[in-house]
């Protein structure tokens, strides 16, 4: 990808830092991550299994109740909850996906030639994005989504 950027002229001169050639686009560079995942899973599972083996086992009727400050538990815990949590989750999706789409923009914008018209369009994009986000934000604010009382 880096090679394409320089040869396509998107990165004129690119970065003049003495950086190593990165051949990290190969799948092989993710192999240590796979190893780490296997180690982490082994660690988690082994710990739970070992405490199962070494720990004592004592059952009891009262012991099996959930903790509710010493009182007998009333009903189930899985009840309806405040709708604000749902609203937060929905707004988070909108914002977070927009931000993720901005990462390629942020990684490329400083590398293009800022005297060209192209750069102006690139700058206009962030302004357009922020405009839409601010409109959505004001709408949400007026609707009371960000109020927590």
């Amino acid at each position, binding site marked *: 990808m880096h090679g394409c950027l320089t040869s396509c002229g998107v990165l004129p001169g690119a970065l003049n830092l003495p950086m190593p050639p990165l051949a990290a686009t190969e799948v092989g560079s993710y192999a240590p991550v796979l190893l780490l995942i296997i180690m982490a899973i082994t660690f988690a599972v082994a710990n739970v299994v070992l405490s199962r083996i070494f720990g004592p086992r004592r059952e009891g009727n009262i012991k099996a109740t959930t*903790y509710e400050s010493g009182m007998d538990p009333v009903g189930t815990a899985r009840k309806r909850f405040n709708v604000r949590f749902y609203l937060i989750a929905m707004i988070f999706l909108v914002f977070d996906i927009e931000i993720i789409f901005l990462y390629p923009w942020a990684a490329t914008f*400083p590398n293009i030639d800022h005297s060209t018209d192209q*750069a102006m369009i690139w700058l206009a994009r962030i302004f357009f994005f922020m405009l839409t986000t601010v409109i959505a934000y004001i709408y949400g604010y007026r609707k009371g989504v960000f109020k*927590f009382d």
Partner: protein
Amino acid sequence: MNPPAFLTAQFIVSTITAIIMVHVVLITVAYSIYLERKISAYIQDRVGPNRVGFDFGLPGLKFLRGAWGLGQPLADGIKFLLKEDYQPRGADKALFTLAPMAIVIPALIGFAIIPWGGTWVIGDIHLPLINWTIPGGPVQVAGAAVNIGIIYILAVASLGIYGVVLGGWASNNKYSFLGGLRASAQMISYEIPLGLSLLSVLLLTGSLIPTRIIGHQLTEGWLIFQQPLAALIFFICILAEANRAPFDNAEAEQELVGGYHTEYSSMRFALFFLAEYAHMVTSSAFFALVFLGGWDLIPFVSTLPIEAAPGWGGFALVLLKIFIYFSKVLLLICFMMVIRWSIPRMRFDQVMQVAWQSVIPLSMAHVVMTAVLVYLDLDTLLPLLLANIALAAVMLAVLPLLPRATANQKVRLSGSRFHPPIGERVISRPTDPTALDEHGVEAVVVASR
């Protein structure tokens, strides 16, 4: 005979680094729990753990007794292992076991892309028995040298939410349920300003590759000096993401007992704790990578060479870089702990209001400001610093003009001790006859606050 294609020098170095660093991080996590107990003890004028040494009760090892309580993490681990792993009635059996695993696995793989030791040019590696020669070259001393470094760490950090939600849901406990809900809402809320403040840094570096971000800071100075406001937002967000005080609403002891891990015991409880501290290590390393120049020693002064030479000299340089990097991480962890024991916890509605009504708008304005400065080619130290100060000044100037939240405020009770009626004569004098201060205050109320 040629080695297989995947067996490059980078692969070997990455694998070794990953295996070593996962152990280093686990030991750091164990001892940061000890450190937290010590720091909190000194802040509260106590001594903290100082009994458990490494003598294991054996008379021959008597000289290892005490040792400033350094054996405490080991004793804690053994204790956790020997405790009963209990599951309350009505808990979702599969999810109850899955939740601590789901929180500890992302915490242990998050730091894979951190370039602990920078770049090392190594010579050809010759494996004698099978007679393979692996060509050397510049390699990165990191768990995984991938192009999408920053995206990877963000993605893995977000996965930790699943463990919190599952733990809260599976416990069948009302405290756990509320704690899980709160924690997930808080974590997803603070992920937005985290991403946005990172964006205004990437606008300067122009790359997602960790090595390039450090390289940029070597030439231009550490980014905390160029983007102090972004660094502040980022630090607030990593505190909130790690559920640390003053944002530890998920496990607010006074109101929610233990939050999402109320019903957990034994090693499954320990995994939750471990994940929290591993998350601290990862986010501190992330902060040091983005804002504190990674392994760079002194800002604005080039002290260490970018590439370490082959051989033992280069290896020593790599070790020095790892040492510097890790010192920064430990300093940040200590800073987080001091914050935890100094600042009171915020109320949940305050936490969410800080996220949605102040930090997110501020970080959006910051991104726009940085984009304009980059467009005008003013992305050097002085203009950026001035612009950050100007934005902070504008924020402080606008703050009194914004509408104030009226909810959740103390209701003024006219005629009470705190709000006496106007014109009343108020006498304030210690009622205790043995009180040292005998000077009472006597005044007439002229205005109510």
